[in-house]
């Protein structure tokens, strides 16, 4: 799933809000949500695959944190959409 699609889910956006405040392990994160810990883990996996969060080993615990580069990728995704779209439009107008 790309970053924009990953952001399409309200729980995942809320997870990002929490992680933006402070990086934390999945257990601490799950306490802030009414959904189950495995469900939170699944959302984290989607966010991680989309490059929006990163898992850091901190001592014995794995801590999730926001990955700023991932948000830049969101911009690049939209950017490249319009680069391709407008160059195709340009060709179309020449016909």
């Amino acid at each position: 799933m790309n970053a924009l699609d990953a952001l399409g889910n309200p729980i995942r956006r809320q997870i990002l809000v929490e992680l933006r405040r402070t990086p934390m392990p999945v257990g601490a994160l799950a306490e802030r949500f009414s959904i189950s810990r495995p469900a939170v883990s699944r959302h984290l996996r989607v966010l991680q695959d989309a490059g929006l969060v990163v898992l850091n080993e901190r001592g014995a615990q794995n801590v999730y944190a926001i990955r700023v580069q991932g948000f830049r990728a969101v911009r690049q995704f939209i950017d490249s959409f319009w680069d391709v779209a407008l160059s195709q439009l340009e060709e179309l107008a020449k016909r």
Partner: protein
Amino acid sequence: MIVKSVVLQCGPERAFALFTEHAGLWWPAERRHTRDAASTIRIEAGGRFFERSSDGTEVELGVVRLFDPARRLLLDWYPGTGRTNPTQVEVRFESVAGGTRVTVQHGAGAAGADAFGRNVSGYVRAWDLVLAALATTR
């Protein structure tokens, strides 16, 4: 806010028609929602903005807020963020030497900001992250 522009070798009326009636011809093939690379995409005066695949499946891509032929378009844009928090796209058509300048501005927009304001503050802050990404200087 992402800003892109291109000069088309045609008049503003044709440029506007290509953009709205024939969006399926310029929309990137790999960014289709129906998985049909030859799907029809239309931006209509009546307000609909949708994709239709060859088997008839339709997907709403947004809402047309302003349809001012040969001049300006304002779209609520669902791809990526969904209909509950659309991004906003403004397209301007200007007559210039040699053709028509088409300028696309893609960002949160005023309508988007209003929509976010109706939701809980945390939700708005999450959107801030996306906006920060969108606002990065080119």
